[in-house]
């Protein structure tokens, strides 16, 4: 089979854009920024994936979902993990950030990487996705999934997830 003449890069990207993130189904794996590149050869489509967190349980789901989607289109794929450059929240598309907030997850706050050494991270304003107040507080650096922290709103008193900056 000669894939290069049969399918286009646009087709490959459109298939990928229809695969939802297994844990946050409102955004696709492309919007999440984990799909780094695609290469179409004569025999197979190579897809490079960068996991968000090394222990993210969704990694295996990414692979299964990608394989299943391409199988439906009868396109053979090969998936490779790349760890450098390390995934960063800067790769989330702006569209994805809007979708996250609508879904109830506060998107990462720009230019406020939480990765400062020890206690130099400093305060930052995370907006409550429910009532949009910025009067919020960190409850725990670790939330329901590896990529999220737990916050609560001091105004509407609702707890919420924050997609933490890395």
């Amino acid at each position, binding site marked *: 089979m000669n894939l290069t003449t049969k399918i286009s890069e646009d087709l490959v990207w459109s298939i990928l854009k229809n695969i939802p993130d297994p844990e946050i189904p409102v955004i696709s794996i492309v919007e999440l920024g984990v799909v780094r590149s695609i290469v179409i050869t004569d025999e197979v489509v190579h897809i490079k994936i960068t*996991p968000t*967190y*090394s*222990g*993210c*349980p969704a*990694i295996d789901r990414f692979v299964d979902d990608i394989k299943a989607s391409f199988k439906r289109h009868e396109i053979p794929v090969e998936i490779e993990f*790349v*760890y*450098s*450059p*390390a*995934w960063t929240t800067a790769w989330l598309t702006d569209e994805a950030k809007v979708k996250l907030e609508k879904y109830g997850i506060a998107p990462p706050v720009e230019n406020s990487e*939480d*990765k400062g*050494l*020890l*206690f130099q*991270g400093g305060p930052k304003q995370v907006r409550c996705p429910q009532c949009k107040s910025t009067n919020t507080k960190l*409850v*725990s*650096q*670790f*939330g*329901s999934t*590896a990529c999220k922290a*737990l916050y609560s709103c001091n105004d509407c008193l609702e707890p919420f997830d924050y997609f*933490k900056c*890395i």
Partner: protein
Amino acid sequence: MTKKEALINYCLRIADSSLILGQRMAEWCTNGPTLEEDIALSNISLDLFGQSRILYEYVSELKGGDTTEDSLAFKRNEREFYNRLITERPNGNFGDTIVRNFLFDVFCYYFYTELSKSTDERLAAFAEKSLKEVTYHMRHNGEWIIRLGDGTEESHEKAQNALNNVWAYTDDMFEMDTTDELLISKGIAVDLKSFKDKWFTTVEDVINRATLIVPNDVFMHKGSNEGQHSEFLGHLLCEMQYLQRSYPEATW
């Protein structure tokens, strides 16, 4: 020793430390002092397991044959593990866990910072990824040490005891041998002595803020580079490897 053999040793030391500490943290699952903390401890466990998998995969490729991530984790005996002694220390009370982890987190923070400059691309990429995760662990555990040390009389006493008990395993983290020498000469490995002062300064700063005292004149246990362990690793492996030992090749 060939470069490949040294690289396998080197990767196992790092990956085994992550796996064993990850297993310790998994023991906390459903036993955390609060729900939020339970989730945090389990999250840390997941990060550590993920880190070990990346390097076990690399070791499998280097070794070839029928070595897999799973065979490395589940089919090696105690003396074939090279995890740092501090990582196998039992969880004890919450303070023991937090103090143990913090001392190791700070080590990892500086170690991965340096390792991300390795001439071995796989190790450098691994370090770059892991550094982001371990920074979160370090901050989380550092904040807890201050809360515990500068908390109630009881929490202060428990945190100080934790520090006194685990300090004897800190020098082992910085032990180097011919494996390190060979790889340092090729720009692959990190000279662990190069950041020991930074490690101490950061640790001391947090200990001081927590109104605790850095132990001194402590006998230092060593031996992880040769696979010599405390009595606790065997028990941990018994539990972790039970399923694969009793039902070989069992799958989901």
